[in-house]
């Protein structure tokens, strides 16, 4: 397996990269929704991010990548405490995946050959502590979407079917991508994604040339190319690790909370999820910038990606909601 494209070598797409790094710093922000044209490096970025992140410690042979015995579910039958380092898991959810494949189901082989009732973990188990990537999320079947929402929300996968009663932790960052021209996403699902970014093909010739050049170098001169970007990836990795630590000490002054609330009221976003996500994202961003306190500048920078998809949408409104958010941010935060 070839090493994925280095994260630092992705040209442009600043907002998408920023959103992904923020979820790496604080996974509880929720998922990232990337909407935009084809061939803009959406899936490349997800795979690159996972390669960038530091490896996680997990129990050997544990199907859900648990770090300790207490977290490993009983049915997995893991008894030894030996751990090993594995890369942050990135699991692709194919559009056609059946429910069995996603949640896990009865182990066919054991049932047929030995008459045993055993659980075969699905994609949700594999994705625990990592990323679950859905390309064309807007075309995913409705009942799979419902199921994912439920698990992403609770952090636990509960399987009650075929005479099995199984539960296991499934905490993952949901990354969805898609092309809005091919169908919209249901508002309920939109709201569950923490951040949302729009990507477009670069318009500058020079930028496009650079994209092609790097891709070509990656394919044809792989080793040299990876070596060339290794240092920059390592610097990014350190910055993420540092930010994770800094996040714990970061203070959120009352004035910042006030700003966040005011912004959400002005935009009329439903529920309180907008406030919470915006606050978390702004804190992660401040930690990323290595600032000691949360300020208005941080909120202003992450507000579009945290709130864009939460506005009550008029289906006949032509202007993008991103513009609306920016306008309100200007008004409220000055």
């Amino acid at each position, binding site marked *: 397996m070839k090493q994925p494209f280095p994260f630092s070598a992705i040209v442009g797409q600043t907002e998408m990269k920023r959103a992904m790094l923020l979820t790496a710093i604080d996974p509880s922000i929720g998922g990232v929704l990337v909407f935009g044209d084809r061939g803009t490096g959406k899936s490349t970025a997800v795979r690159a991010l996972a390669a960038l992140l530091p490896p996680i410690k997990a129990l050997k042979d544990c199907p859900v990548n648990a770090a300790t015995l207490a977290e490993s579910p009983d049915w997995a039958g893991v008894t030894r405490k030996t751990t090993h380092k594995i890369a942050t898991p990135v699991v692709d959810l194919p559009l056609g995946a059946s429910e069995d494949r996603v949640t896990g189901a009865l182990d066919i082989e054991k049932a047929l050959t030995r008459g045993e009732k055993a659980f075969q973990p699905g994609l949700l188990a594999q994705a625990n502590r990592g990323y679950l990537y859905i390309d064309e999320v807007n075309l995913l079947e409705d009942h799979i979407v419902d199921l994912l929402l439920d698990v992403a929300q609770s952090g636990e996968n509960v399987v009650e079917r075929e005479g099995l009663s199984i539960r296991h932790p499934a905490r993952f960052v949901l990354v969805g991508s898609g092309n809005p021209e091919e169908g919209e996403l249901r508002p309920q699902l939109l709201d569950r994604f923490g951040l949302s970014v729009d990507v477009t093909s670069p318009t500058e010739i020079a930028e496009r040339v650079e994209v092609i050049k790097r891709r070509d170098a990656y394919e*044809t001169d792989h080793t040299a190319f990876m070596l060339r970007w290794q240092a920059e990836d390592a610097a990014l990795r350190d910055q993420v690790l540092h930010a994770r630590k800094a996040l714990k000490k970061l203070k959120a002054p009352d004035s910042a909370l006030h700003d966040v609330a005011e912004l959400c009221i002005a935009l009329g976003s439903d529920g309180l999820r907008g406030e919470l996500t915006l606050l978390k994202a702004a804190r992660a961003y401040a930690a990323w910038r290595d600032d000691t306190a949360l300020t208005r500048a941080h909120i202003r920078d992450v507000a579009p990606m945290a709130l864009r998809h939460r506005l009550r949408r008029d289906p006949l409104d032509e202007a993008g909601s991103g513009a609306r958010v920016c306008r309100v941010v200007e008004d409220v935060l000055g």
Partner: protein
Amino acid sequence: MTPFARATTALQLLAIDPVRLGGMVLRARSGPARDGVIALLPDDTLRLHPALPTEALEGGVDVATSLAQGQLVRHRGMLSHGCSTLLLAMAERTPPLMVTTLAQALDSGSKSALIALDEGVEEDEKIPFALSDRLAFHLTLDGLGQADIEPMLQSARSAELGSVQTPDHAIDDLVTLAVSLGIDSLRAPYLALCAAQAHAALSRRSSVTTEDITAAAELVLAPRATRLPAPPEEVDDAPEPERSETPSETPENIALPDEILLQAIQTALPPDLLAKTGSNTARNAKGSGAGRKRVGNRRGRPLPARDGAPRGDQPRVDLMATLRAAIPWQGLRRRETGHIGARPLIRPSDLRYKRYQELSDRLLVFAVDASGSAAMARLAEAKGAVELLLAEAYARRDHVALISFRGAEAELLLPPTRSLVQTKRRLAALPGGGGTPLAAGLKLGLETAEQADRRGLSPVLIVLTDGRSNVALDGSGHRGRAAEDSTAVARQIAQAGVETIVIDCGKRPDRSLSQLAVSLRGHYASLPRADARSLSDAVTTALDS
């Protein structure tokens, strides 16, 4: 290069670098030229067709053998066979699920080149963009006959691909060219670069030259062009620009590469390019085009399992139901066969299959009368009502198409789409005036509905008119013939089984319209003093009943 030489060159390039080039889209009906190309494919070519179940592609459990042998037997999917070429017939019908599967295989560096045969007859039948975007070559063999077949030039062993050097200006040229041809996707210039490198290797050159770039541009970029390499305003102003016309002026920020390159491109430009550029729909066509191909049935929620293989093409065994069906017989079977051990004895008759309920997406076709009489009466109101219905359609996730009829003919203003913004824009721009060619409007409505039906949508035709049909199908203003024509078309619609709703928006209810609704076997709503809201309510009631 002649069109046939293009195809053979593409095949040679694919043989050199199948992993990066992905494959080829070949638009051709069956005929000697297509057979000629297929004959050139390697012997180990596997044929795919759009109705293949995912399991056949990706591999899965071989149920019959598993049961017979008492252990899990998997069969390998066609994608992992490692054959050099996959041939996908009728690629324009590929369902979204298969497109994703194939796209994933291409992205992960599949060793097999994919040749997608596009046999689409209608203009809207095209290979899904997600697939065609990943395949380097887009070629057409339309209109070629036996005489055009040329033998493939057998070249000596090609140079090592890895040793081909790429000068920087080559990348610049290809990217600039892609932009000036209006190609948005960044995959196109990258695939062109790969093609140029493969072409250099084919010609035993150690470095990419202008000749390679020209060939790559001709094979990869030109067929994807959405506009001529000239400022679009010029194209619009010129009455009928010739295809071979060289652009007289280049946009300031785009430096066009060599003249030679452009000439090569222009011979390979798709013939219907100007038709697409001339109307202002070029940009929109890209978006809604992608949407249109992708529509189809949702795959549905599971239903209780049943015995007997279903008629569908993807029978999936429901294991639990199968075991449950087998358990009562275990004692008997054990005694019969003398079998010892924990393994349950399962016979083919125990097999239970999963079933899914498919929900088809609905398409609302609005046929709006924009004639003078209707315009006088209440075109504005009708527009308002349609807008309200659109908002409702959004909530129900319906697809919408818009037809207007006035003057001598009907016009499809908006092909089936989910983009309500577009619908609203077209509707607002709807002009009024002229005669009432009701028959033509109904006919176009029927055609649109039938097309949608073939793609798995359930169409509903909603006709808004004041009923005074006065233009016949042939465009003549004969009142009697006009009425006859519209009744005849209405019967056709009823026969085709298309659901219809007739909304009378004249000043007072028109007898002829309620008769029309009878011939249509549809609902009739008269709204003499209706406002937009009650019109919308009427339709909702009719749809729900």
